[in-house]
């Protein structure tokens, strides 16, 4: 971290809260609302304390209607505000899809740039928390497929803070997906002051020579555990934390694969038409002659995420990831 910066130990919940707090304090146009985000501070307590600090006009509970939460944010953004709205779970965001697809992603284009859709739609996503149905899915590829949106997923408290600040400052609409499984699982020192992590830039977390693994969100930590196993087996893995789903950082992925000759995508969502498919296509286009093994998708099944008794089959464990790393390297 930058020398001299005051640091504080934060988990991802603290870091997101901190980013919101900084932007609320700095920019009166920032408004935070959604279901239970005000008094309670959200079901995951991400917005805890913000209403007390910034007032009920700026941080508040909305009626329970996802389409309206996003649809009203469209109007607010058109009128010059920068709303940051919360979908309580990504699995409950579907009623808002008409607004997201028909207006959030389009009003800038439809009005030929007259109206910015400067808004952030935050949503916790992903499995592994022993939840009810609709609480475990990973639909980031779906949002990445909608032209006009930016889609961001942090994997650490530091990135969560810096990316959310960038998202709020972006004049383009950002879907900010939060890996709820690691909301509190990772703690690290994060600068207390304001900083940005740029949208659209992946990060090489560990360099290696045998295979490139692209992951994001909660999967980064699982891959890191798999890398320990790979190291013991004598396999050198380069790990890229994608951080932004769209615009996807093709350069970083391609440069890495040109070095390693192998690419694995680790993503929780369904296999077909997903992130692994997209990254395989990018590599086929950009680094075809460098490939020594077929691009591999280590992803969820094309099934519904099973309820907790069956979820262990679906989840990508370090062991499963290591198994696929070894198969790709030995191809």
């Amino acid at each position, binding site marked *: 971290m930058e020398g001299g910066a005051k640091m504080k130990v934060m988990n991802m919940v603290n870091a997101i809260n901190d980013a919101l707090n900084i932007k609320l304090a700095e920019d009166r146009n920032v408004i935070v609302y959604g279901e239970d985000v005000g008094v309670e501070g959200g079901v995951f307590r991400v917005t805890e304390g913000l209403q007390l600090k910034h007032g009920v006009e700026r941080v508040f509970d909305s009626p329970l209607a996802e389409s309206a939460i996003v649809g009203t944010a469209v109007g607010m953004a058109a009128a010059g505000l920068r709303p940051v709205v919360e979908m309580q779970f990504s699995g409950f965001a579907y009623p808002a899809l*008409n607004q997201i697809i028909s207006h959030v992603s389009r009003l800038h284009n439809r009005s030929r740039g007259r109206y910015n859709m400067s808004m952030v739609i935050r949503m916790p996503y992903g499995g592994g928390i022993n939840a009810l149905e609709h609480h475990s899915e990973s639909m980031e590829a779906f949002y990445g497929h909608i032209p006009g949106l930016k889609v961001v997923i942090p994997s650490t408290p530091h990135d969560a803070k810096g990316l959310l600040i960038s998202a709020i400052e972006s004049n383009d609409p950002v879907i900010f997906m939060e890996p709820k499984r690691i909301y509190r699982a990772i703690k690290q020192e994060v600068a207390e002051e304001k900083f940005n992590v740029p949208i659209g830039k992946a990060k090489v977390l560990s360099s290696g020579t045998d295979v490139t693994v692209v992951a994001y969100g909660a999967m980064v930590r699982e891959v890191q555990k798999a890398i320990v196993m790979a190291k013991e087996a004598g396999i050198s893995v380069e790990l890229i934390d994608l951080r932004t789903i769209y615009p996807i950082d093709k350069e970083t992925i391609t440069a890495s694969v040109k070095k390693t000759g192998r690419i694995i995508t680790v993503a929780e969502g369904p296999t077909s038409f997903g992130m692994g498919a997209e990254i395989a296509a990018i590599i086929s286009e950009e680094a075809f002659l460098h490939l020594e093994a077929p691009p591999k998708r280590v992803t969820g099944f094309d099934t519904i995420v099973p309820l907790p008794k069956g979820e262990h089959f679906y989840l990508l464990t370090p062991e499963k990831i290591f198994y696929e790393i070894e198969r790709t390297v030995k191809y």
Partner: protein
Amino acid sequence: MFEEYNPINEKIFRVIDNDGKVINKKWMPEISNERLIKAYKDMLFARTADLQTVSYQRQGRIYTYPPNYGQEAISGATAMVMRNEDWLVPAFREMGAYLAKGATLKELFLVFMGHEDGNVFKNANNMLPTSVPIASQLLHAAGIGYEINYNKKKQVVYAFVGDGGTSEGDFHEALNFAAVWKAPVIFIVQNNQYGISTPFKMQTASKGIAIKSIAYGMKGIQVDGNDIFAIYQAVKNASEYALAGNGPVLIEAETYRKGAHTTSDDPTKYRSKEEEEAWDCTDPLKRLKLYLISKKLWSQKEEDQLVEEYKQEVDRQFEEAENYPAYKLEDVFKYMYDEMPDDLKKQQNEYENFMKWKEARK
């Protein structure tokens, strides 16, 4: 007004009859003769433009178009109340309101010729572009209303939807949010009796739409939408009520879509000649014209002359739209993001290479 015409009493608000005679002196608004004549001329212009636009479509010079024919008083009356600083959140059958806000026919024609540049409405202050997904725009109006309250501005949002749109969830969510937030939004439902081919009685089992306001804790009123005095009075009262910080109002304006849903639709399939003729007696222009003639403020001769002028003006703007510069490849890409991702630049660039290749082959 909202007490006297509480929708629970199922009393429709009307000021003049079908012959333009005042039947409700108490609520006859005070409008100067000049203003009234201007309102009539604006409606006449909108009607002339609308009918001509349908004929352009028949000539194959524009794509699909949703006619306004028969519904002109609702936009016309709203235009008399709506101020420059107020917001217009339209659906797509409010030509008079568009023009009053500062949109031009040329821009509208561009949209129906298939060019997004028409959607900018650069001289229309505080106006969103046409919203095609039914009722989805009403939520934008509620959000704008929140911003108005948040910044303590003195503005009103005029948001339009049709009767079919009131069955959409977004209609109900917008009313609910606006009422909870006391947002200064006037929701104007143009109940033209049909959602494409579906008659109003198949749309809801409710006794009208205005009555739905009660459950949301907001004011509502059912108005004769072909009576410009009634609509004006209702919109004016609603706007004063909203400006005073009392929250939103739902206005149900009863009207009849004399034309087709769009130029792709054939109303003879789902409604009778008798029905159409019965509604013809309520025509909003006819009623205002009879009123003006009775006050010696208008004549058919004046009208015929004016319509000829209007036709030429409509043609002129249409030709301007036809001569608008051709759509460029960059227009496809450059407004997708405020900051264009490299990927899009690359896609544009690759297509430029293809165009060069195509050119070289000739």
